[in-house]
């Protein structure tokens, strides 16, 4: 076996070094196989190393049979190098969809036949017709006369290499300025093996019989590996997108299915606290270990998902992130990785929290106010009751005889106790409305009874001021209607009481009528001073008073009309005021005519059989 019978020659050295270098490249690229194209590059470096080392041993072999053996070994690399080269360029150009296993196998048919034929060439001479030793050069070289298939192989390999070069030149012409020199370097690297091979084939080598093609391939592989690792070769195409992703304020990183970070932008580097070179290739588990919540979500995500998480930053402050996880699928539909985008929403979150707190505070303050009003009103009733009771008992002589002057004083006490009671009532009512606690209790009621009760209560006040107080119910008003009688009485008394309070001469009139068939109305008119147009816009607001002095004299907290308006609204009615200064005032309250009648009407309609048309 002569192939192990070889000697060291200085010409072997560059090829041995290049071969070992190519092996290291193959290993280096393989360990970074998570980067797109790295596997192809690794295979390419491996086959080139076979070629280069085979050639080194061919040079070193003393005898022809040894040289022939190593010559045949080289072909394993020679035929595979152009194939891997083209596949790499195709991937590099983004034609990954085109690179399928059936196509790769098809591309390997001619190389496989070539390898088969070169190992059996002694029988048929299709590759090498004749082999001999050429002792004329600085070392005894293997010289061959090529057979017919060799030229098929040569044409095929050249075609693949040329295709790759054309694709690279095309890229060079299209590439963005800043990446042009890089593309140019890659084109030059691509030309190297082709040039070296041409030089060898046409016998232009300075050192006779020395084939520099494998060396050129090693150079190509080295340039490509360097580019791949330093420039993200395969990311050349989406330059704009890349730049955008890198400068955006949202953190973005990509994990492969093994959980390794394969890409990360600047913002994400900042969030995670690692440089790109430190982060890429590391597992997400390692880098994100302090954020188990995020990891858990990333792991289980197979569909677009958006979550909000809180993470501590380097200073230990809690930051809030809106994390969007997008799964990536390869062309076969398999999950191949995940994009994780993190938006810092701490500021928004803080604002939301502040708003929410402010709102809570307002709600709480309002509730406290309502509770306070209700409690104060409740607690005041008992002592006011005691004052009123004792004074009235005194007045009727229950504790002994009283003189006329004392009776007058007692009347004033009773009168003021009445105002105090009204104030307490109004405060309670208002707080009930504020809390939405007012519930209506609609029942059928007799309209005339309601009006006569109001008349009985109010005529005393009117008489005391020498005012005429009249009530009138239109004949078309139903005898019975449905409504909350107590609340309706409250509305009537409030309006009439107001009218009497502010009128010094003339009359106050209460009228119940139907302005429309489906509407009933309360009309309270007076001959008082009237309300200015400007004041009319305020009179239904709580705590608003027409005139402080009048109101103080007459009691009340300025809540009467506000409460009336609230009640009317609650009952589904409307209230309006018509007034001009010096012309008196008219309040008109309208309600939909209660469903009481509608139900009867509806029932009667149902019971009437449909009239057949004539």
């Amino acid at each position, binding site marked *: 076996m002569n192939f192990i019978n070889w000697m060291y020659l200085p010409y072997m050295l560059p090829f041995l070094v290049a071969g070992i270098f190519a092996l290291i490249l193959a290993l280096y690229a393989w360990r970074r196989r998570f980067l797109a194209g790295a596997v192809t590059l690794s295979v390419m470096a491996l086959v080139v190393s076979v070629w280069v080392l085979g050639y080194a041993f061919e040079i070193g072999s003393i005898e022809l049979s040894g040289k022939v053996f190593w010559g045949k070994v080289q072909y394993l690399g020679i035929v595979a190098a152009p194939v891997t080269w083209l596949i790499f360029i195709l991937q590099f150009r983004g034609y990954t969809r085109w690179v399928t296993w059936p196509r790769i196998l098809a591309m390997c048919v001619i190389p496989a036949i070539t390898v088969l034929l070169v190992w059996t060439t002694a029988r048929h001479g299709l590759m090498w017709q004749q082999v001999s030793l050429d002792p004329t050069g600085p070392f005894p070289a293997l010289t061959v006369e090529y057979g017919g298939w060799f030229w098929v192989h040569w044409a095929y390999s050249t075609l693949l290499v040329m295709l790759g070069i054309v694709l690279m030149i095309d890229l060079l012409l299209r590439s963005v300025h800043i990446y042009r020199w890089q593309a140019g370097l890659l084109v030059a690297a691509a030309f190297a093996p082709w040039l070296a091979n041409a030089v060898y084939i046409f016998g232009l080598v300075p050192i006779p019989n020395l084939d520099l093609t494998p060396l050129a391939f090693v150079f190509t592989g080295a340039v490509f590996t360097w580019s791949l690792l330093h420039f993200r070769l395969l990311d050349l195409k989406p330059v704009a997108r890349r730049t955008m992703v890198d400068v955006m304020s949202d953190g973005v990183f990509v994990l492969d299915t093994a959980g390794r970070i394969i890409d990360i932008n600047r913002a994400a580097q900042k969030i995670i606290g690692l440089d790109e070179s430190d982060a890429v290739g590391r597992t997400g588990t390692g880098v994100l270990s302090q954020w188990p919540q995020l990891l858990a979500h990333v792991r289980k995500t197979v569909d677009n998902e958006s979550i909000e998480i809180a993470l501590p930053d380097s200073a230990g402050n809690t930051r809030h992130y809106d994390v969007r996880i997008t799964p990536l699928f390869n062309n076969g539909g398999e999950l191949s990785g995940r994009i994780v985008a993190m938006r810092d929403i701490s500021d928004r979150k803080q604002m939301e929290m502040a708003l929410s707190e402010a709102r809570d505070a307002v709600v709480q303050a309002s509730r406290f106010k309502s509770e306070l009003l209700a409690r104060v009103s*409740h607690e005041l009733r008992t002592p006011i*009751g*005691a004052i009123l*009771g004792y004074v009235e*008992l005194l007045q009727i*002589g*229950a504790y002994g005889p009283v003189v006329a002057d004392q009776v007058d004083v007692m009347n004033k006490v009773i009168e003021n*106790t009445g105002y105090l009671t009204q104030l307490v009532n109004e405060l309670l009512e208002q707080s009930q409305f504020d809390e939405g606690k007012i519930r209506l*209790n609609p029942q059928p009621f007799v309209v005339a009874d309601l009006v006569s009760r109001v008349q009985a209560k109010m005529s005393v006040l009117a008489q005391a001021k020498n005012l005429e107080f009249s009530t009138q119910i239109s004949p078309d008003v139903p005898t019975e209607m449905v409504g909350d009688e107590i609340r309706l009485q409250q509305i009537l008394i409030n309006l009439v009481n107001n009218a009497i309070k502010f009128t010094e001469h003339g009359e106050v009139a209460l009228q119940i009528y139907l302005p429309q068939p489906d509407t009933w109305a309360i009309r309270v008119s007076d001959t008082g001073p009237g309300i200015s147009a400007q004041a009319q816009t305020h009179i239904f607001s709580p705590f608003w008073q027409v005139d402080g002095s009048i109101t103080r004299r007459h009691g009340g907290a300025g809540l009467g009309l506000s409460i009336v308006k609230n009640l009317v609204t609650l009952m589904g009615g409307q209230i309006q005021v018509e007034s001009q200064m010096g012309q008196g005032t008219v309040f008109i309250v309208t309600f939909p005519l209660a469903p009481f009648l509608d139900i009867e009407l509806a029932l009667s309609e149902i019971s009437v059989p449909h009239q057949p048309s004539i």
Partner: protein
Amino acid sequence: MTQNLALIVEDDPDLIEIFSRILKMLKFSVEKISSGSEAVAYLAHAEPALILLDLNLPEVSGRDILYKIRLDERLKHIKVLLVTADIVNVRPLSQMADGILIKPIGVQELRQTINELFPTNQDSA
């Protein structure tokens, strides 16, 4: 039923005094009780003709006492006037009571109400 016996169930001593004065003017004999549980104990053996019942009472509420009275065959005919400062919670009880008086209650108002319930008891004042 004990004719002309009125029970005041109220925890404010001043109101007890005022109510009892008025009831006496109306020729009632008056029993005064200031807690719900005492009222329940009292009603176990007595049948007043009229009860002035405060709703907000210690221990047993006036509402519970009203229910007891209305569900008891022996007591359910007693006239009950609810006396309360609680406008909101008293309304649902209006069907069960013979009258509702919202504090502050005037002497005239109370006298008139009782006169309507007991037309035969003539006012002495």
